Protein backbone atom coordinates (compact mmCIF):
# COMPACT_ATOMS: atom_id res chain seq x y z
CA UNK A 1 0.00 0.00 0.00
CA UNK A 2 1.76 3.15 -1.09
CA UNK A 3 1.44 6.45 0.68
CA UNK A 4 -0.20 8.36 -2.19
CA UNK A 5 -3.06 5.85 -2.20
CA UNK A 6 -3.64 6.39 1.51
CA UNK A 7 -3.53 10.17 1.16
CA UNK A 8 -5.86 10.06 -1.86
CA UNK A 9 -8.44 7.97 -0.03
CA UNK A 10 -8.10 10.01 3.14
CA UNK A 11 -8.76 13.25 1.29
CA UNK A 12 -11.74 11.67 -0.49
CA UNK A 13 -13.22 10.41 2.79
CA UNK A 14 -12.72 13.79 4.44
CA UNK A 15 -14.32 15.63 1.52
CA UNK A 16 -17.32 13.30 1.38
CA UNK A 17 -17.79 13.50 5.13
CA UNK A 18 -17.64 17.31 4.98
CA UNK A 19 -20.09 17.44 2.10
CA UNK A 20 -22.55 15.11 3.88
CA UNK A 21 -22.51 17.31 6.96
CA UNK A 22 -22.82 20.49 4.93
CA UNK A 23 -25.74 19.15 2.91
CA UNK A 24 -27.44 17.84 6.05
CA UNK A 25 -26.99 21.26 7.65
CA UNK A 26 -28.48 23.12 4.72
CA UNK A 27 -31.23 20.51 4.39
CA UNK A 28 -32.62 21.80 7.69
CA UNK A 29 -32.68 25.28 6.16
CA UNK A 30 -34.16 23.97 2.91
CA UNK A 31 -36.80 22.07 4.86
CA UNK A 32 -38.01 25.27 6.49
CA UNK A 33 -37.87 27.23 3.28
CA UNK A 34 -39.76 24.54 1.35
CA UNK A 35 -42.33 24.31 4.15
CA UNK A 36 -42.72 28.06 4.07
CA UNK A 37 -43.08 28.07 0.30
CA UNK A 38 -45.73 25.34 0.36
CA UNK A 39 -47.64 27.12 3.12
CA UNK A 40 -47.30 30.57 1.55
CA UNK A 41 -45.00 31.97 4.24
CA UNK A 42 -41.50 33.45 4.15
CA UNK A 43 -39.62 31.05 6.40
CA UNK A 44 -36.39 31.95 8.25
CA UNK A 45 -35.11 35.32 6.97
CA UNK A 46 -33.38 37.03 9.93
CA UNK A 47 -29.92 35.45 10.20
CA UNK A 48 -27.91 36.69 7.25
CA UNK A 49 -29.18 37.30 3.69
CA UNK A 50 -32.43 35.34 3.17
CA UNK A 51 -31.73 33.54 6.46
CA UNK A 52 -28.65 31.78 5.07
CA UNK A 53 -26.94 31.61 8.48
CA UNK A 54 -29.95 30.08 10.22
CA UNK A 55 -28.37 26.53 10.37
CA UNK A 56 -25.26 27.98 12.04
CA UNK A 57 -27.39 29.78 14.60
CA UNK A 58 -29.35 26.58 15.24
CA UNK A 59 -26.17 24.57 15.67
CA UNK A 60 -24.75 27.11 18.09
CA UNK A 61 -27.98 27.05 20.07
CA UNK A 62 -27.85 23.23 20.26
CA UNK A 63 -24.28 23.29 21.57
CA UNK A 64 -25.00 25.97 24.14
CA UNK A 65 -28.09 24.32 25.66
CA UNK A 66 -27.91 22.60 29.00
CA UNK A 67 -27.08 18.93 28.86
CA UNK A 68 -29.56 16.83 30.82
CA UNK A 69 -29.18 13.12 31.44
CA UNK A 70 -32.21 11.78 33.32
CA UNK A 71 -31.41 10.24 36.72
CA UNK A 72 -32.89 6.85 35.93
CA UNK A 73 -31.55 6.64 32.43
CA UNK A 74 -28.86 4.15 31.54
CA UNK A 75 -26.08 6.73 31.24
CA UNK A 76 -23.67 4.85 29.00
CA UNK A 77 -26.28 3.67 26.48
CA UNK A 78 -28.00 7.05 26.63
CA UNK A 79 -24.81 8.52 25.18
CA UNK A 80 -24.18 5.66 22.74
CA UNK A 81 -27.60 6.09 21.08
CA UNK A 82 -27.09 9.40 19.25
CA UNK A 83 -23.49 8.48 18.39
CA UNK A 84 -24.62 5.25 16.80
CA UNK A 85 -27.33 7.09 14.87
CA UNK A 86 -24.71 9.44 13.40
CA UNK A 87 -22.25 6.61 12.69
CA UNK A 88 -24.70 4.46 10.75
CA UNK A 89 -25.91 7.52 8.86
CA UNK A 90 -22.40 8.44 7.70
CA UNK A 91 -20.85 5.09 6.73
CA UNK A 92 -23.27 4.47 3.87
CA UNK A 93 -21.47 6.98 1.63
CA UNK A 94 -18.34 4.81 1.41
CA UNK A 95 -19.42 2.69 -1.57
CA UNK A 96 -21.22 5.29 -3.67
CA UNK A 97 -19.35 6.26 -6.86
CA UNK A 98 -19.42 10.06 -6.85
CA UNK A 99 -18.14 10.40 -10.40
CA UNK A 100 -16.30 8.59 -13.17
CA UNK A 101 -12.52 8.37 -12.60
CA UNK A 102 -10.61 11.63 -13.07
CA UNK A 103 -7.47 11.35 -15.23
CA UNK A 104 -4.72 13.82 -14.36
CA UNK A 105 -1.68 13.17 -16.54
CA UNK A 106 -1.07 9.42 -16.27
CA UNK A 107 -2.76 9.12 -12.89
CA UNK A 108 -6.35 7.87 -12.62
CA UNK A 109 -8.14 8.94 -9.46
CA UNK A 110 -11.30 7.04 -8.61
CA UNK A 111 -14.09 9.14 -7.06
CA UNK A 112 -15.32 6.20 -4.99
CA UNK A 113 -13.90 5.39 -1.58
CA UNK A 114 -14.06 1.64 -2.07
CA UNK A 115 -15.53 -0.63 -4.72
CA UNK A 116 -16.43 -3.79 -2.82
CA UNK A 117 -18.11 -6.42 -4.96
CA UNK A 118 -21.09 -6.60 -2.61
CA UNK A 119 -21.73 -2.85 -2.60
CA UNK A 120 -25.52 -3.06 -2.83
CA UNK A 121 -25.67 -5.49 0.08
CA UNK A 122 -23.35 -3.26 2.10
CA UNK A 123 -25.79 -0.37 1.68
CA UNK A 124 -28.63 -2.67 2.68
CA UNK A 125 -26.70 -3.78 5.78
CA UNK A 126 -26.03 -0.20 6.84
CA UNK A 127 -29.72 0.61 6.40
CA UNK A 128 -30.69 -2.33 8.58
CA UNK A 129 -28.27 -1.21 11.29
CA UNK A 130 -29.61 2.35 11.35
CA UNK A 131 -32.45 1.41 13.68
CA UNK A 132 -30.08 0.59 16.56
CA UNK A 133 -29.37 4.24 17.35
CA UNK A 134 -33.08 4.89 17.80
CA UNK A 135 -33.74 1.66 19.71
CA UNK A 136 -30.85 2.02 22.14
CA UNK A 137 -31.55 5.70 22.76
CA UNK A 138 -35.26 5.08 23.27
CA UNK A 139 -34.71 2.22 25.68
CA UNK A 140 -31.91 3.90 27.65
CA UNK A 141 -34.06 6.98 28.30
CA UNK A 142 -36.16 4.88 30.69
CA UNK A 143 -39.32 6.61 29.54
CA UNK A 144 -42.43 4.73 28.44
CA UNK A 145 -43.06 7.02 25.49
CA UNK A 146 -39.47 6.75 24.27
CA UNK A 147 -39.64 2.98 24.58
CA UNK A 148 -42.90 2.83 22.62
CA UNK A 149 -41.32 4.95 19.93
CA UNK A 150 -38.20 2.76 19.81
CA UNK A 151 -40.37 -0.33 19.41
CA UNK A 152 -42.37 1.35 16.66
CA UNK A 153 -39.15 2.27 14.86
CA UNK A 154 -37.87 -1.30 15.09
CA UNK A 155 -41.01 -2.95 13.75
CA UNK A 156 -41.38 -0.35 11.00
CA UNK A 157 -37.79 -0.82 9.84
CA UNK A 158 -38.00 -4.61 9.86
CA UNK A 159 -41.27 -4.56 7.92
CA UNK A 160 -40.09 -2.24 5.18
CA UNK A 161 -36.69 -3.90 4.84
CA UNK A 162 -38.48 -6.94 3.42
CA UNK A 163 -40.05 -5.03 0.54
CA UNK A 164 -36.84 -3.03 0.01
CA UNK A 165 -34.76 -6.20 -0.22
CA UNK A 166 -37.17 -7.72 -2.72
CA UNK A 167 -37.13 -4.58 -4.89
CA UNK A 168 -33.32 -4.73 -4.88
CA UNK A 169 -33.44 -8.40 -5.95
CA UNK A 170 -35.46 -7.44 -9.03
CA UNK A 171 -32.89 -4.74 -9.80
CA UNK A 172 -30.03 -7.21 -9.44
CA UNK A 173 -31.71 -9.50 -11.96
CA UNK A 174 -31.39 -6.65 -14.46
CA UNK A 175 -27.85 -5.56 -13.56
CA UNK A 176 -26.24 -8.97 -12.90
CA UNK A 177 -23.78 -7.40 -10.49
CA UNK A 178 -23.66 -6.25 -6.87
CA UNK A 179 -20.92 -3.68 -7.39
CA UNK A 180 -22.25 -0.12 -7.40
CA UNK A 181 -19.46 0.97 -9.75
CA UNK A 182 -20.52 -1.54 -12.40
CA UNK A 183 -24.20 -0.77 -11.89
CA UNK A 184 -23.53 2.89 -12.62
CA UNK A 185 -21.30 2.13 -15.61
CA UNK A 186 -24.08 0.01 -17.13
CA UNK A 187 -26.41 3.00 -17.07
CA UNK A 188 -24.26 4.98 -19.51
CA UNK A 189 -26.03 7.90 -21.18
CA UNK A 190 -29.77 7.57 -20.73
CA UNK A 191 -29.99 3.79 -20.06
CA UNK A 192 -31.14 4.41 -16.52
CA UNK A 193 -32.43 1.50 -14.48
CA UNK A 194 -35.65 3.32 -13.67
CA UNK A 195 -36.70 2.70 -17.28
CA UNK A 196 -36.30 -1.07 -16.78
CA UNK A 197 -37.51 -1.22 -13.18
CA UNK A 198 -40.22 1.46 -12.70
CA UNK A 199 -42.20 -0.61 -10.18
CA UNK A 200 -39.02 -1.53 -8.34
CA UNK A 201 -38.12 2.14 -8.08
CA UNK A 202 -41.50 3.09 -6.65
CA UNK A 203 -41.23 0.29 -4.08
CA UNK A 204 -37.70 1.38 -3.22
CA UNK A 205 -38.56 5.02 -2.72
CA UNK A 206 -41.56 4.21 -0.51
CA UNK A 207 -39.34 1.96 1.60
CA UNK A 208 -36.65 4.65 1.69
CA UNK A 209 -39.19 7.04 3.21
CA UNK A 210 -40.03 4.42 5.83
CA UNK A 211 -36.39 3.59 6.61
CA UNK A 212 -35.41 7.23 7.09
CA UNK A 213 -38.45 7.84 9.33
CA UNK A 214 -39.63 10.66 7.12
CA UNK A 215 -43.25 11.78 6.85
CA UNK A 216 -45.66 10.12 6.11
CA UNK A 217 -43.84 7.29 7.90
CA UNK A 218 -42.56 9.31 10.87
CA UNK A 219 -44.51 7.31 13.45
CA UNK A 220 -41.53 7.01 15.83
CA UNK A 221 -41.66 10.81 16.11
CA UNK A 222 -45.43 11.10 16.32
CA UNK A 223 -45.76 14.09 18.68
CA UNK A 224 -49.49 13.82 19.18
CA UNK A 225 -49.21 10.30 20.57
CA UNK A 226 -45.69 10.05 21.97
CA UNK A 227 -44.90 13.57 23.34
CA UNK A 228 -41.74 13.76 21.23
CA UNK A 229 -40.71 10.26 20.25
CA UNK A 230 -37.56 8.32 20.99
CA UNK A 231 -35.73 11.58 21.69
CA UNK A 232 -38.20 12.89 24.28
CA UNK A 233 -35.58 12.81 27.06
CA UNK A 234 -32.74 14.17 24.97
CA UNK A 235 -31.47 17.71 25.09
CA UNK A 236 -28.63 19.78 23.71
CA UNK A 237 -26.41 18.35 20.98
CA UNK A 238 -27.53 14.75 21.64
CA UNK A 239 -30.96 15.75 20.40
CA UNK A 240 -29.19 17.64 17.62
CA UNK A 241 -27.39 14.46 16.57
CA UNK A 242 -30.66 12.56 16.24
CA UNK A 243 -32.24 15.30 14.14
CA UNK A 244 -29.06 15.66 12.12
CA UNK A 245 -28.74 11.92 11.48
CA UNK A 246 -32.19 11.99 9.90
CA UNK A 247 -31.02 14.56 7.35
CA UNK A 248 -27.81 12.65 6.62
CA UNK A 249 -29.90 9.51 6.11
CA UNK A 250 -32.05 11.45 3.69
CA UNK A 251 -28.96 12.58 1.78
CA UNK A 252 -27.49 9.07 1.66
CA UNK A 253 -30.73 7.45 0.54
CA UNK A 254 -31.14 10.11 -2.15
CA UNK A 255 -27.61 9.32 -3.32
CA UNK A 256 -28.38 5.58 -3.33
CA UNK A 257 -31.57 6.08 -5.34
CA UNK A 258 -29.78 8.30 -7.86
CA UNK A 259 -27.03 5.69 -8.18
CA UNK A 260 -29.20 2.59 -8.41
CA UNK A 261 -32.09 3.88 -10.50
CA UNK A 262 -31.24 7.28 -12.00
CA UNK A 263 -27.88 6.63 -13.58
CA UNK A 264 -25.59 8.16 -10.93
CA UNK A 265 -23.22 10.52 -12.71
CA UNK A 266 -24.51 9.56 -16.18
CA UNK A 267 -26.62 11.93 -18.26
CA UNK A 268 -27.76 12.01 -21.88
CA UNK A 269 -25.13 13.51 -24.15
CA UNK A 270 -22.23 12.81 -21.79
CA UNK A 271 -20.04 11.41 -24.57
CA UNK A 272 -20.21 14.67 -26.49
CA UNK A 273 -19.42 16.66 -23.35
CA UNK A 274 -16.47 14.35 -22.63
CA UNK A 275 -14.91 15.07 -26.03
CA UNK A 276 -15.31 18.82 -25.56
CA UNK A 277 -14.40 19.21 -21.89
CA UNK A 278 -11.51 16.75 -21.56
CA UNK A 279 -10.71 14.03 -19.02
CA UNK A 280 -10.53 16.26 -15.95
CA UNK A 281 -13.56 18.52 -16.31
CA UNK A 282 -16.01 15.97 -17.76
CA UNK A 283 -16.07 13.67 -14.68
CA UNK A 284 -16.60 16.71 -12.49
CA UNK A 285 -19.60 17.72 -14.62
CA UNK A 286 -20.89 14.18 -14.01
CA UNK A 287 -20.48 14.72 -10.26
CA UNK A 288 -22.43 17.97 -10.49
CA UNK A 289 -25.20 16.11 -12.35
CA UNK A 290 -25.25 13.45 -9.61
CA UNK A 291 -25.63 16.13 -6.95
CA UNK A 292 -28.42 17.77 -8.95
CA UNK A 293 -30.27 14.44 -8.89
CA UNK A 294 -29.62 14.11 -5.15
CA UNK A 295 -31.00 17.59 -4.49
CA UNK A 296 -34.07 16.79 -6.58
CA UNK A 297 -34.70 13.73 -4.40
CA UNK A 298 -34.17 15.70 -1.19
CA UNK A 299 -36.69 18.25 -2.44
CA UNK A 300 -39.08 15.38 -3.17
CA UNK A 301 -38.69 14.12 0.40
CA UNK A 302 -39.67 17.58 1.70
CA UNK A 303 -42.48 18.01 -0.80
CA UNK A 304 -44.06 14.73 0.31
CA UNK A 305 -43.70 15.69 3.95
CA UNK A 306 -45.98 18.71 3.49
CA UNK A 307 -48.38 16.91 1.15
CA UNK A 308 -49.29 13.55 2.65
CA UNK A 309 -50.48 13.29 6.27
CA UNK A 310 -49.02 10.71 8.65
CA UNK A 311 -50.31 7.14 8.45
CA UNK A 312 -52.06 5.38 11.28
CA UNK A 313 -50.00 2.48 12.62
CA UNK A 314 -52.26 -0.26 11.24
CA UNK A 315 -52.28 1.46 7.85
CA UNK A 316 -48.49 1.47 7.93
CA UNK A 317 -48.31 -2.26 8.60
CA UNK A 318 -51.03 -2.99 6.05
CA UNK A 319 -49.12 -1.08 3.38
CA UNK A 320 -45.81 -2.72 4.21
CA UNK A 321 -46.89 -6.34 4.40
CA UNK A 322 -50.04 -6.62 2.32
CA UNK A 323 -49.40 -4.15 -0.51
CA UNK A 324 -45.68 -3.58 -0.98
CA UNK A 325 -44.48 -7.11 -0.29
CA UNK A 326 -46.80 -8.96 -2.74
CA UNK A 327 -46.11 -6.24 -5.32
CA UNK A 328 -42.36 -6.70 -4.82
CA UNK A 329 -42.60 -10.49 -5.18
CA UNK A 330 -44.69 -10.11 -8.35
CA UNK A 331 -42.08 -7.67 -9.64
CA UNK A 332 -39.28 -10.18 -9.03
CA UNK A 333 -41.18 -12.98 -10.79
CA UNK A 334 -42.23 -10.88 -13.79
CA UNK A 335 -38.71 -9.46 -14.17
CA UNK A 336 -37.29 -12.98 -14.08
CA UNK A 337 -39.73 -14.26 -16.70
CA UNK A 338 -39.13 -11.29 -19.03
CA UNK A 339 -35.35 -11.68 -18.76
CA UNK A 340 -35.62 -15.42 -19.47
CA UNK A 341 -37.76 -14.73 -22.57
CA UNK A 342 -35.49 -11.96 -23.85
CA UNK A 343 -32.42 -14.16 -23.47
CA UNK A 344 -34.15 -17.04 -25.24
CA UNK A 345 -35.09 -15.11 -28.38
Amino acid at each position, binding site marked *: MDITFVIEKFVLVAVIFGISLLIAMYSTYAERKVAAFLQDRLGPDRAGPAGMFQPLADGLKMFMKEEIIPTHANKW*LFMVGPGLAMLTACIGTAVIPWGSPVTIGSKVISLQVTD*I*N*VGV*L*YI*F*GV*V*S*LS*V*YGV*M*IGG*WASNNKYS*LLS*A*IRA*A*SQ*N*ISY*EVAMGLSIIALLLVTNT*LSLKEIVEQQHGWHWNVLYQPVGFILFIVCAFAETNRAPFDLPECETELIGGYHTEYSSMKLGFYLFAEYINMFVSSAVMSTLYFGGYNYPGMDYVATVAGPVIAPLIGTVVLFAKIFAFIFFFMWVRWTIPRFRYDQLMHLGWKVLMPLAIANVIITGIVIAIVEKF
Partner: protein
Amino acid sequence: MGTSVFYLVAFLSIFFSLMVIFAKNPVHSVLYLIVTFFTFTVHYILLNAQFLAVVNFIVYMGAIMVLFLFVLMLLNLNKDNEPLKSGLVKVVGIVAGCCLLVTLAGSLKATAVSNPLVLQNVNLGLVKNLGKELFGPFMLPFELSSILLLTAMVGAVLLTKKEKV
Protein backbone atom coordinates in the same frame (compact mmCIF):
# COMPACT_ATOMS: atom_id res chain seq x y z
CA MET B 1 -0.21 -9.20 9.53
CA GLY B 2 -3.15 -11.51 8.73
CA THR B 3 -2.51 -13.79 11.69
CA SER B 4 -2.09 -10.99 14.21
CA VAL B 5 -5.38 -9.44 13.06
CA PHE B 6 -6.96 -12.87 13.36
CA TYR B 7 -5.74 -13.31 16.94
CA LEU B 8 -6.95 -9.85 17.90
CA VAL B 9 -10.42 -10.45 16.42
CA ALA B 10 -10.58 -13.97 17.86
CA PHE B 11 -9.76 -12.56 21.29
CA LEU B 12 -12.49 -9.94 20.88
CA SER B 13 -15.03 -12.59 19.80
CA ILE B 14 -14.35 -14.68 22.88
CA PHE B 15 -14.25 -11.65 25.16
CA PHE B 16 -17.61 -10.32 23.96
CA SER B 17 -19.26 -13.74 24.01
CA LEU B 18 -18.18 -14.06 27.65
CA MET B 19 -19.65 -10.62 28.27
CA VAL B 20 -22.96 -11.88 26.81
CA ILE B 21 -23.08 -14.48 29.57
CA PHE B 22 -21.81 -12.33 32.40
CA ALA B 23 -23.87 -9.20 31.75
CA LYS B 24 -26.57 -8.81 34.39
CA ASN B 25 -29.00 -6.89 32.22
CA PRO B 26 -30.53 -8.91 29.35
CA VAL B 27 -30.53 -5.88 27.02
CA HIS B 28 -26.80 -5.47 27.63
CA SER B 29 -26.38 -9.16 26.83
CA VAL B 30 -28.05 -8.66 23.47
CA LEU B 31 -25.90 -5.63 22.72
CA TYR B 32 -22.75 -7.64 23.47
CA LEU B 33 -24.10 -10.39 21.24
CA ILE B 34 -24.43 -7.85 18.42
CA VAL B 35 -20.78 -6.88 18.87
CA THR B 36 -19.86 -10.59 18.87
CA PHE B 37 -21.64 -11.03 15.55
CA PHE B 38 -19.76 -8.03 14.22
CA THR B 39 -16.45 -9.72 15.06
CA PHE B 40 -17.70 -12.78 13.14
CA THR B 41 -18.25 -10.51 10.14
CA VAL B 42 -14.62 -9.42 10.43
CA HIS B 43 -13.57 -13.08 10.53
CA TYR B 44 -15.42 -13.73 7.27
CA ILE B 45 -13.74 -10.73 5.64
CA LEU B 46 -10.34 -12.05 6.76
CA LEU B 47 -11.24 -15.31 4.98
CA ASN B 48 -12.14 -13.28 1.85
CA ALA B 49 -15.74 -14.50 2.10
CA GLN B 50 -17.28 -11.12 1.32
CA PHE B 51 -20.76 -12.36 0.57
CA LEU B 52 -21.00 -14.40 3.76
CA ALA B 53 -19.64 -11.43 5.72
CA VAL B 54 -22.25 -9.02 4.44
CA VAL B 55 -25.09 -11.55 4.77
CA ASN B 56 -24.05 -12.23 8.36
CA PHE B 57 -24.12 -8.46 8.83
CA ILE B 58 -27.61 -8.07 7.35
CA VAL B 59 -29.33 -11.17 8.70
CA TYR B 60 -27.83 -11.54 12.16
CA MET B 61 -26.92 -7.99 13.13
CA GLY B 62 -29.58 -6.18 11.14
CA ALA B 63 -32.62 -8.40 11.45
CA ILE B 64 -32.46 -11.17 14.04
CA MET B 65 -30.81 -9.11 16.76
CA VAL B 66 -33.25 -6.24 16.17
CA LEU B 67 -36.05 -8.69 16.89
CA PHE B 68 -34.25 -10.02 19.99
CA LEU B 69 -33.81 -6.48 21.26
CA PHE B 70 -37.42 -5.73 20.38
CA VAL B 71 -38.75 -8.62 22.46
CA LEU B 72 -36.46 -7.88 25.41
CA MET B 73 -37.46 -4.23 25.41
CA LEU B 74 -41.13 -5.21 25.36
CA LEU B 75 -40.64 -7.60 28.27
CA ASN B 76 -38.52 -4.98 30.04
CA LEU B 77 -36.83 -7.49 32.33
CA ASN B 78 -34.95 -6.15 35.31
CA LYS B 79 -33.81 -7.21 38.74
CA ASP B 80 -37.18 -6.59 40.42
CA ASN B 81 -39.17 -9.07 38.39
CA GLU B 82 -36.46 -11.65 37.78
CA PRO B 83 -37.71 -15.06 38.95
CA LEU B 84 -35.80 -16.40 41.92
CA LYS B 85 -33.67 -19.41 41.14
CA SER B 86 -33.82 -22.18 43.70
CA GLY B 87 -30.68 -23.81 45.12
CA LEU B 88 -31.41 -27.08 43.35
CA VAL B 89 -31.28 -25.39 39.94
CA LYS B 90 -27.88 -23.94 40.79
CA VAL B 91 -26.52 -27.38 41.83
CA VAL B 92 -27.85 -28.92 38.61
CA GLY B 93 -26.22 -26.10 36.66
CA ILE B 94 -22.84 -26.69 38.30
CA VAL B 95 -22.99 -30.44 37.63
CA ALA B 96 -23.97 -29.90 33.99
CA GLY B 97 -21.23 -27.30 33.56
CA CYS B 98 -18.60 -29.67 34.99
CA CYS B 99 -19.77 -32.45 32.66
CA LEU B 100 -19.43 -30.10 29.69
CA LEU B 101 -15.96 -29.08 30.84
CA VAL B 102 -14.84 -32.71 31.08
CA THR B 103 -16.25 -33.49 27.63
CA LEU B 104 -14.60 -30.45 26.07
CA ALA B 105 -11.26 -31.17 27.75
CA GLY B 106 -11.42 -34.80 26.60
CA SER B 107 -12.22 -33.89 23.01
CA LEU B 108 -9.51 -31.22 22.96
CA LYS B 109 -6.98 -33.77 24.23
CA ALA B 110 -7.86 -36.12 21.38
CA THR B 111 -7.28 -33.55 18.64
CA ALA B 112 -3.91 -33.10 17.04
CA VAL B 113 -2.62 -29.70 16.00
CA SER B 114 -3.92 -29.21 12.50
CA ASN B 115 -2.06 -27.59 9.66
CA PRO B 116 -2.84 -23.92 9.15
CA LEU B 117 -6.01 -23.66 7.12
CA VAL B 118 -5.22 -23.09 3.46
CA LEU B 119 -8.06 -22.03 1.24
CA GLN B 120 -8.36 -24.22 -1.82
CA ASN B 121 -9.71 -21.38 -3.86
CA VAL B 122 -9.13 -17.88 -2.51
CA ASN B 123 -12.02 -16.41 -4.48
CA LEU B 124 -14.54 -19.03 -3.40
CA GLY B 125 -16.32 -16.60 -1.10
CA LEU B 126 -17.11 -14.04 -3.81
CA VAL B 127 -20.76 -13.82 -4.83
CA LYS B 128 -20.35 -15.23 -8.32
CA ASN B 129 -18.44 -18.35 -7.29
CA LEU B 130 -20.61 -18.97 -4.28
CA GLY B 131 -23.74 -18.75 -6.40
CA LYS B 132 -22.34 -21.21 -8.93
CA GLU B 133 -21.50 -23.64 -6.14
CA LEU B 134 -24.90 -23.31 -4.49
CA PHE B 135 -26.90 -23.69 -7.68
CA GLY B 136 -24.57 -26.31 -9.16
CA PRO B 137 -23.35 -29.21 -7.01
CA PHE B 138 -25.38 -28.19 -3.93
CA MET B 139 -28.66 -27.50 -5.71
CA LEU B 140 -30.77 -30.09 -3.89
CA PRO B 141 -29.71 -29.32 -0.29
CA PHE B 142 -30.05 -25.61 -1.01
CA GLU B 143 -33.60 -25.95 -2.32
CA LEU B 144 -34.56 -28.32 0.51
CA SER B 145 -33.38 -25.83 3.13
CA SER B 146 -35.44 -23.13 1.44
CA ILE B 147 -38.53 -25.35 1.74
CA LEU B 148 -37.70 -25.81 5.43
CA LEU B 149 -37.62 -22.04 5.91
CA LEU B 150 -40.87 -21.63 3.98
CA THR B 151 -42.55 -24.21 6.21
CA ALA B 152 -41.42 -22.34 9.31
CA MET B 153 -42.75 -19.10 7.86
CA VAL B 154 -46.16 -20.56 7.04
CA GLY B 155 -46.32 -22.01 10.56
CA ALA B 156 -45.53 -18.62 12.10
CA VAL B 157 -48.23 -16.91 10.03
CA LEU B 158 -50.77 -19.58 11.04
CA LEU B 159 -49.94 -19.11 14.73
CA THR B 160 -50.69 -15.38 14.54
CA LYS B 161 -54.11 -15.92 12.99
CA LYS B 162 -56.57 -15.54 15.83
CA GLU B 163 -59.90 -15.97 14.08
CA LYS B 164 -60.97 -19.31 12.67
CA VAL B 165 -59.86 -19.90 9.11
